[in-house]
């Protein structure tokens, strides 16, 4: 039995310790906002925040994250998340939307560390998150728009 801290709540799970966090979230806990896209940390659809850092859950054994702070798209809160999600909605960013939970988590991680990212910062921070609909043009614009609504020294 492992105790996980997911979205600020303790959750006990009885699973193969080698099972990637992705499948624990989706199949065991029903948190399907975290998506499967490649299973090899190549696309970012499975992004969660681990202790506030954007992390690929599809190659992360659940035993490695017991007791650590895991935030999924369902549990994402705070002023940076609000700014990002509002910018995404106002900018009509989504198309199929399947990658966007991961994109939002990556964007919130970026803006939390760097409230005024340059295009190069965005390329570096978001380059691991694939969007097959290629909404990148709007993701970039929405990231800049969200940044403009946040104080320069972000929380």
């Amino acid at each position: 039995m492992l105790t996980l801290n997911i979205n600020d709540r303790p959750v006990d799970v009885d699973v193969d310790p080698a099972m990637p966090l992705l499948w624990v979230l989706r199949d065991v806990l029903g948190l399907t906002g975290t998506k499967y896209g490649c299973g090899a940390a190549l696309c970012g659809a499975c992004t969660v925040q681990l202790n506030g850092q954007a992390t690929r859950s599809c190659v992360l054994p659940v035993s490695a994250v017991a007791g650590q702070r895991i935030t999924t798209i369902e549990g994402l809160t705070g002023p940076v998340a609000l700014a990002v999600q509002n910018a995404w909605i106002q900018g009509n960013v989504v198309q199929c939307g399947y990658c966007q939970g991961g994109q939002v988590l990556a964007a919130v991680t970026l803006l939390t560390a760097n409230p005024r990212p340059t295009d190069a910062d965005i390329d570096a921070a978001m380059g691991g998150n694939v969007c097959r609909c290629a909404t990148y043009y709007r993701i970039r614009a929405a990231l800049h728009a969200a940044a403009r609504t946040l104080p320069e020294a972000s929380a």
Partner: protein
Amino acid sequence: MKRSTTSRREFLRLTTLGGAGLALGGVAFGAAEGGAIFTMPFLRIDPDNTVTVFSKHAEMGQGVWTGLSTLVADELDADWSQIRAESSPTGPLAYGNLAWDPSGRLQATGGSTSIFNSWLQLRAAGATARAMLVSAAAARWVVPPAEITVTAGVVAHAASGRRATFGELAGAAGRLPVPDAVVTLKAAHAFTLIGREGLPRLDGPAKTRGREPYGIDQRLPGLKIAVLARPPRFGSTLKSVDASAAKAIKGVVDVVAIDRGVAVLADNTWAALRGRDALRIEWDETAAETRGSGALLAEFRRLARSDEALDVVQRGAVDAALAAATTRVEAEFEFPYLAHAPLEPLSATCVLSADRCEIWAGSQLQSGDVLNAAAVTGLRPDQILLHTLASGGSFGRRANPASDFIRETVATAKATGGRYPVKLIWTREDDLQGGMYRPMNLHRIEAGLDDRGQLTALRQRIVGQAITLGTPFAALTVKNGVDVMATGGSAAEQYAIPNCHVTWTNPQVGVPVLWWRSIEHTHMAFSKEVLMDELAKSTGQDPLAFRLALLKDNPRATAVLTLVAAKSGWGMPLPAGVGRGLALQESSGTVVAQVAEVRLVDGALRVDRVTCALDCGVAVNPDVIRAQMEGSIGFGLGAALRNEITLTDGRVDQRNFDSYPPLRMPDMPQRIDVHIVPSTNPPTGVGEPGVPPIAPAVANALFALTGKPVRKLPLQGNGDMPNFPSA
């Protein structure tokens, strides 16, 4: 879900009524139901004042929920904030794609036909509901209906000062008979939502917050997850399987053989995957396709020079015109197989009992999927209940006449006796290696120009597998043995060339193929538009002027080209090291032109800017149209830069996004401008037509920069591009 079981049954009964109510475009609107809810085939109005539009078309990212809802909401005079959208049920005739079958029997999303075929039907649905709300208000207030206005979701009678919301009138409206008379639709100047800027996408909030349920997210009590071991070569079949090690893995509950492979079922995906890895399988490869890409290319080249071909276009006297030409250009173009690779891998969920089969999936071809599920189960089509969920991308992949992923799921449920709900998912490796690719193609072209530099002759051989030959679609898409979906969109069709002979050879290859976003136009536009620039250059002409001279009888294409030229600064000087290229293609009734500006940075291609112009008739949702052009540019560019499915001795070489690298943020052009030609013509599609021009526009920009024409895709690792790095 607010809808009760009773109202849902009633809804289904009503929407399957044939001939009753208002008929328009082959569709019957059933009578509205009683109670406090007002339900019609395409919408429901609840007492809480929400209007839910039932989308007969699959939402895959193209914005169709928003688009169809805009049509309904405008004629209903609803307020956009009260509109919701969800997938319609499967089956009733109301939900057929009228572009493909006017009788309504084919429920399908594809070919960029959704807005096109729904334009009158969905507006009529909104106008009919509006008329019934007005009638209900008139009866309640005892005033003439003609004195009642509807504005932004408020029904009002000015003289008496009475007002009501749709929700307040829903119950009364729902008890009224559906009007017999054909409703009057708005004139274009009266549109309030159609064409309006600033409408938020209906699916934006849920998708931004991780709350949109996709097919792969389906959960049910007792659900088992299945993955399928498929043969390593196309055409192989199962010889024997030893499942003992797989069954020993904790969480694995069953292993069954079906026609397409061996399914491992488990309590969770991880156990199913480990179980599949532990299978020991022998395949019978007697009928397998064992050729590699090199052998296929050699065969395609041989066929391109053979007489084994059918006529696609034959006009004038091409031999004589070529013989008389002052300038002749010959070119051979190569295109690889391409995978759709939607980010949501294929999946379906099935609950099977003795007399019913319930399926949840993202589907672009519900009618075919129902028939195929019926064939697998032995049930009647009316015993198949298919729920369409949002798709995490599809690009054509979930519209396949063979229903491969649906059939596998249903067959697995059947093989396990319906003991548990089954969700079968494809891994990314399954997706990239599982076939149904954009066909590999070889085009061989000879063109001739006269002494004034006019294009007088075109001979083109297309070698590429048929997509719809032998499928139920053939009645629509195969003419005189020629599959339009393998051969359309050539220069002979899109430019005024007096002498043309276009022929097609359908090579026999065991690699399954399918339509891929914009179908034949992905390769046909490339050879055509790259050739145009070669021809222009060979006679010292400007590529824009050269095309315009061939489009004198095509005012739409002329307007689009003229607009893209003006907005892109065509002809204006460029900084050193920047190349500019143009391409044009009409597909799905929409004309799109794009101008790309490219640089080589340390030998790597960088697309800085793309200017796009299009004519899609009435622009229903301008921002969705712009988004589709931006996304299509990225989708097409990613494929053109790096993507190919290759085979070695019949085995697919690519496995995941490392060997099939998708476009990423740093690859996306920094600047994209989309310009929509104002139009009052009925709308045509925008989900696909933005794809074909980008690859030739980029290739032509490279040609302008390097002087060397590009005749092979993908660009990366391309011997035609010596300065371009290989992977």
